[in-house]
Each structure stands twice: as C-alpha cells, then as structure tokens.
C-alpha cells in the first residue's frame, strides 16, 4: 500500500462529495438516464482502486458509479457521460449502467443481474491463455448471487484455476425487497466453500483494514490460481420516508436509483452517524478539526475542477 493514511482519507471523501454533487444535479433534473448512486459503498470502492495493479481488470454491475469515480478520479468527465456529451468518459455512448473505462482496467459493466460474472470469468480465462499476470475483480450483489450464473461462474473459475476475486456487495436489498422478504439465507462461506473457494467477510467500513485484507486476498488468489469470494456488508444510504395515508411515521423507501431527495451536500459529507456510513467511520481516525479541514479542502478542490 503506497497511499498514506491522509491520501486514502481524501480519496474516500472525494468519492462521497463526487456522488453528492451528482445527486444535487440529479435532484435538479439534469440527467435523463437512470443512475444508481452508491452512497455508503465508498470504502470498498476506494479499497479496490488502491489494491488494483496495472495488470488487474475490474468488471462491474449496474451500480458502478463508485468504482468508476474511484478509478478515474475525474468528476467532470463522469458528469459529461451522464449528460450523454461527447466529452464524457465513454463519449456519451455508455451512460451509467454500462459505463467502463478500459484505460483504468474497467473492462465491462452490465445492467443485467449476474450477467457480468461469467464475462469476468472469461476475462480471467483470457489472461490464463495469454499467460498474463494479474487478477480479475468482479463486483456483484446479494441480489445477483441468486442468479444461476453466480454458481456457474465460480464453478468454471475454480475448475480452470482462475484468479478471480468476486466481491459481493451485500446491502440486504434487491430493489424494494429485503433478503428476508424474498429468499432464505445463503451462507456464502459454506456455499463457496463447497467448491473449495476461500471466503472473507468485510464489515464495519474501516477502509484501512479493508485494504490490508484485500491486498492479502489478491496475493492469495494469484499465488494459488484460485477464485476467492469476498462478502462486504454495507448500507446503501439515501433512504427516506414517504408521507402516505396509513403510515403515521411515513413509509420507508429504500434508495435504489435516481436522486436521493433527503441528502444535501450542505450538510457535510457524513450522511449517517453510525458505522453504516464509511465517512463517519473515517472521521473516527481523525480529530474533528482535522476531518473538517480535510473535507473542506477536498470539496473546494472538486468545485475548482468542475467550474
């Protein structure tokens, strides 16, 4: 890990503010395409960006904004892409759900649940055929692992000794249903263990410990030519309560896509005062004053960049 503690903190703050700025524009109805914000997913995205080597490849799902922003480190070209401008990251041709960035190793992104897993296995297989080093990292979620392609892709990757890192972002929700509302519990450790695949759980949003663990797992996957599965417990922030008849306390609306109406950048980068919010966790590593100073610097830098 070459980045310092402060650089990592600035990177995660930058990612939060980037998303908040996009959210403000979204609330102003500047975008016509669907965008899936990933507020609350910043720790794993920055962690992946930091541990990725030039020879690694990343494969994403429809909720990919956090990884794209973390890798590209340029908000303007991402906003231009969402505005479908030629100056956009993909010349306005990919929009949000399929946004990739080959120069930064982001090879493929799919809006279809589970679709990206086998493409990632194919990329990893291609590396093996070409005798290239590096891992392929594929990001999926607790909804997509219900698809058969999750099992099929792990089976193929294990059978062919492919160093494929499968990250399962578990936010408990698939659009409007919690796991307990739609299926039985999947014990991922046992599930992937039945195929001889190692499993690691990341929780608590401590970016510094995430980086150490992910670096170690990357090394393990490479040296053993094997897939590994990492489950990341996280919360997609941005939920809100709708005032409707029959719900005296308001009806809970889970954030899935579109603008997050209750999140305002004026309130600062922390959305929730709990370990559900990676920025709240980040603050615990710094004093109030240092955190505030760092936040202001990052926000001002971004504002200068997108003037």
């Amino acid at each position, binding site marked *: 890990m070459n980045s310092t503690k402060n650089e990592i903190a600035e990177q995660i703050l930058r990612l939060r503010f980037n998303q908040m700025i996009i959210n403000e524009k979204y609330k102003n109805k500047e975008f016509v395409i669907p965008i899936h914000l990933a507020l609350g997913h910043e720790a794993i995205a920055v962690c992946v960006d930091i541990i990725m080597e030039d020879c690694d490849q990343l494969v994403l799902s429809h909720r990919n904004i956090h990884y794209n922003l973390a890798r590209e480190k340029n908000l303007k070209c991402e906003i231009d892409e969402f505005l479908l401008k030629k100056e956009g990251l993909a010349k306005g041709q990919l929009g949000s759900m399929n946004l990739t960035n080959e120069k930064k190793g982001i090879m493929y992104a799919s809006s*279809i649940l589970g679709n990206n*897993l086998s493409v990632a*296995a*194919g990329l990893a297989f291609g590396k093996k055929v070409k005798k290239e080093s590096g891992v392929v990292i594929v990001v999926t979620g607790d909804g997509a692992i219900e698809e058969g392609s999750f099992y099929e892709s792990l089976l*193929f990757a294990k059978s062919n000794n492919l160093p494929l890192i499968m990250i399962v972002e578990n936010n408990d929700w698939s659009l409007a249903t919690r796991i307990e509302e739609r299926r039985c519990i999947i014990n991922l450790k046992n599930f992937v263990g039945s195929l001889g695949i190692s499993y690691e759980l990341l929780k608590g949003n401590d970016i510094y410990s995430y980086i150490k663990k992910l670096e170690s797992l990357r090394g393990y996957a490479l040296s053993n030519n094997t897939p590994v599965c990492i489950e990341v417990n996280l919360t997609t922030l941005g939920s809100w309560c709708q005032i409707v008849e029959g719900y005296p306390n308001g009806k809970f609306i889970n954030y899935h896509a579109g603008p997050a109406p209750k999140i305002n950048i004026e309130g600062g980068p922390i959305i929730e005062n709990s370990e559900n919010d990676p920025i709240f966790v980040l603050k615990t590593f710094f004093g109030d004053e240092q955190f505030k100073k760092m936040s202001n610097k990052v926000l001002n830098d971004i504002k200068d960049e997108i003037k």
Partner: protein
Amino acid sequence: MKYVQHINKLISDKVLEKEQLVLFGQNISAGSCISGLTKNLKIQKNSIIINTPNCENSLCGIGFGLMLNGVDSIFFMKQQDFLLLGIDHLVNTYNFIRLKNPSASFTIMFVVVDMGYQGLQSSLNNFGDFCSIARIPGFTITNKVDAEQIISKHLVSPGFRLIGISQRLFNEELIDLSLIKSNEDKTIFQYFEGNDTTIVCFNLSLPYGLELYQKLKEKKHNSSLFSVNAVTPIKWNDIIENVKKTKKLVVIDDSKSENLSCDNFINDVLNECKLEKKVIIKKLFSENWLWPNPDKLEINYDEIMNRLK
C-alpha cells in the same frame, strides 16, 4: 463422405491454422465428441481445448470475456436449444461488445434440431430467431461447398457469429454441388442457372430445393437454384434479377419461426417483380410439433411441377 465428417475435417484444418485459440464446450473432446463434430481436433501449442461444466449461460459470457481480452474462441454446442440459456448474453453482452469493435473472434457452433424425433426440443428449428434477436450474423451449413466457404471465412474471424448445422443431414451423404457463385459475405449461394423457374431455399432446406430442381430437370424444366444461408440483412439483387428473368418463383423455408427469413425476401421480390407463378413452402404449425415425428416438410412435388407449367 458424410456431412458431419466433412464439417469435422474443415474444423480440424481451420483450428490447426490458428494460434492462441480456445475451443470449449460440453464433451467436445470426450465420448463421441458431439457425434463426431469435434472429433480428433488438433491444436497449436498455445491453444486450448476444454470440456466444460454444464453451464451454457455462463459459457456464452465466458466467450465474450475471452473476446474482450483479445482471445479467439469457439463454443461448440450439441444442440441449438441449449443456447436458450445464453440469450441474455447474445443480446446484452453482445450489444456491449460490438460497440468496442473487437479484433478477436467468438463463434458459437451448434446443431439445429431440424428433425422431429427429439419431441419438444425439435420444435426449436428456429435458427433465424436467434440471429434476429440482436441482429447477430449467422450462417447455416447444408452441403460441401457452403461448408467450405462459411467455415473458411467465418469460423475464426473478428467479431461474433452463430453457425448452425443440420441434425437431419448429420449422417447423410454429403451433398456435393458445383457452385455458380456466392456473395462476399457467404450468405447467398447459387448452384444452378436456368430460365424457367427460380428456386430459393432458406435455413436448412436446400435438400428439398435440390430434389425439386432435379424433378423439374427430368421434365426439361430448367431452374435456377439459390440457398440463403443467413438471416441478417441481405441484398437480394442477384436473386431478384434471376426472378425477373424466370417470372416463376419457388420459396422453401423449413424454419419454424413466425418471423421467417424468407418473408423479407418475398416482400422485396413482390415489390420488384411481376410474377407469373409463385409457390411458397413453409412449415405449418400442427400438434405434430409437440411429439416425436419425422418432421419433414411435406412437399407434393408433382403438384408444384403442375403449378409451374
């Protein structure tokens, strides 16, 4: 030589030419090797042949992943109906891939169940539907010469395509015809030139058209015989010019689609030609589709010959 032996030989020759090629599929180098289709394949040192798990959906995605990393591959599949599991990739993944203009090749080659003894699976003689769902280039193989030209040009070539071969013809003696001409894309083949009637065969129906041609020939009635081996947009000019000359048209399509490849052609030919006679032979839906049966096109050749007089 049998149809399948010829195709196997052509595949063998082609894959041996290519470096860094991945051949994959279920039982492609085990057991009967897809009833001989992939038997005894030899490859370059840096190529790979693997027998895969039974995961057709993911195997389609894996082919596209290989393509994204610049690796050529061929996915051999025992039956076309297995590809139903991969349709997500044929549409969504392929749409992404083609935006990137890949230099690598990905071909899915499968057997079209165009005979009816497999019961419900036999109802899926719908090669064209798989192609039209995302405008995927696709080619069917019916005889010695189209096999040679299609495999030579398309089996390993930048881009993605489907190649379908006939289960009905699998163990039949190879049809060996002299070619008059084929177009650059290898989508239209002309085997005979005559002034009396134009016979145009779609999907895998060339054997029926050839039988009609021969019966007409016995009656001193000279026909032109075309086979349309693809469903992606095709320029019909050569066939339409021929129809303008003969003014008599027989169209044969043995596919079970409701969106037949021949319908586009018929639409254009009716717009451009004044026909004296027209015979269109298609599959008619019946309950027979749903249980084992020979599933041959029922063609009354004598009646057709009378109509063409």
